[in-house]
């Protein structure tokens, strides 16, 4: 099984950033348990070159790098519900 690679682009530690990170943690721990998962957090304030290369303009932006197809989600991700569908990921178990 290939590793799920997620990249989260943030612009400093803002409430939106914290909310997005918390949501992703819930997602990974509860919904993607058992799947090899990698989350990379890129702060565009310290690494603008990365943002340039990936053409990120809004923050937070989450990119699902693999498995393909690539997906982009702009925003603080609201809640974990429906996020897997949005990411096109197989859920660990059916959403409660």
């Amino acid at each position, binding site marked *: 099984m290939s590793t799920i690679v997620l990249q989260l682009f943030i612009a400093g530690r803002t409430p939106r950033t914290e909310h997005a990170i918390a949501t992703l943690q819930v997602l990974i721990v509860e919904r993607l348990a058992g799947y090899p998962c990698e989350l990379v957090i890129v702060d565009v*304030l310290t690494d603008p070159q990365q943002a340039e290369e990936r053409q990120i303009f809004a923050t937070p932006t989450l990119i699902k790098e693999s498995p393909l197809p690539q997906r982009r989600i702009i*925003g*603080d991700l609201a809640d974990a519900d429906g996020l897997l569908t949005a990411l096109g990921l197989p859920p660990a178990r059916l959403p409660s």
Partner: protein
Amino acid sequence: MTVFPMTPPIEKLPTGIPGFDHISNGGLPRGRTTLVSGTAGSAKTVFATQFLAAGIQQFDEPGVFITFEETPEALRRNMVGFGWDIATWEAQGKWAFVDVSPQPEAEEIVRGEYDLGALLARITYAVGRVGAARVVLDSLGAIFARMENSQMIRSELLRIVAAMRRMGVTAILTAERTQEYGEIGRYGVEEFVTDDVVILRNPIEEEKRRRTIEILKFRGTSHQKGSFPFTVIPGSGVVVIPLSAIELKQRSSNLRISSGNDDIDRMCGGGFFRDSVILVSGATGTGKTLMATTFLASGAAQGERVLLFAFEESRDQLFRNATGWGFDFEEYEASGRMRVICNYPEAASLEDQLIIMKNELETFRPQRVAIDSLSALERVSTMKGFREFVIGLTSFIKHQEVVGLFTSTTPMLLGGSSITEAHISTITDSIILMRYVELFGEMRRGMTVLKMRGSAHDKEIREFMIDGGGLHIGKTFRTVSGILSGQFTHTTPSEIERLGNLFKDDTGV
């Protein structure tokens, strides 16, 4: 022409866009963001790109281009035609793109709240990387169309504008309008950029497109009011034609030069003034082209450089006719003393013609220039456009220390005046009228000097003849009146004598 008694407290950044710095009284307000708004196809992107290109080319000021619409690749390719080699400037570290163009292959979903922090970080990074003095954001419509939350985009753009001000860059923000006249831009852009607004228009008037530029406002600093025509030319981009910004401070010289015809010189009180513009008006066939030919040939014969813009006759016709009068245009041209530019009036828009003519004047630097005929250009333009063209051209010629001779064809054979004259008679220094005179079943020609600024001149209407030796001035028409109106009355010699005796003082010299 406006005089500002105080120095404006706000510094301007010269853009380097031809003509724009003139109408903006020195350029864009430095360190601020100017909104450039226009409908689709109004040359917003060209204007914005040129702002950066001219910065690099003329002032060695690097720039950052934030593109929301076209890809950098498309921009590099589209702008090469204007002589802007963006790819090279990128390699030299003078130009940076921030690419925010839509990526059709990447699927984008919005979930929850977000801001444009990443865009601001990228702009800040790019500005720092190239040391940018100028920034362009083109165009806002694309970002609003892409993201649903317009209120958030507006407040984020306001944040970006504020950040750019702190960076000390001078910026242009382009935005779409849906109509030529009405609200400044869509999506309420004027909410966050209210200080400086420039509008580009491309309306249809009398079935002709006519581009204009208007500085709607510059907060706290001066600019020329109203709209000015501009044109977009391959190889140079936007060229604004600053008409009412023209200042009437041409030098005027007392130096006289010959018209090439001793009789006409005498009628004008000793020849034309240098730095003056002479209008020769007449019906078709009265000898206007001959007058222009003689005027130029006499200059060339003295070793001056002379320039002819011909809009009515072909080169072959002109040269053949000149030979007929005994002037060898071929030889003048071969020796570099003469340049003849034949052009159909329809070949280019009037704005483009003006640019072409200015370029010729600047590169050839003639001492004499003739336009045959000015009225031929009337038909390719609107009335307003033509008037602006004539004013622009006349003022340019007067700045070049040349004598200009324009011919104008009157629509009627007898009497009459043309629109050309109505527009330009006040700005020309001299007016010579050539008219047909019907005299007892014969068509004769009459000439008078209507106006000769700063000099005495012959006020009589004299007959003239054209033969193989050129133009010869004869006697005055003593027995005809009403020549200029075309409503002739013939007076018998005895009546003239009687009238003469009524006014003993008027000796009729």
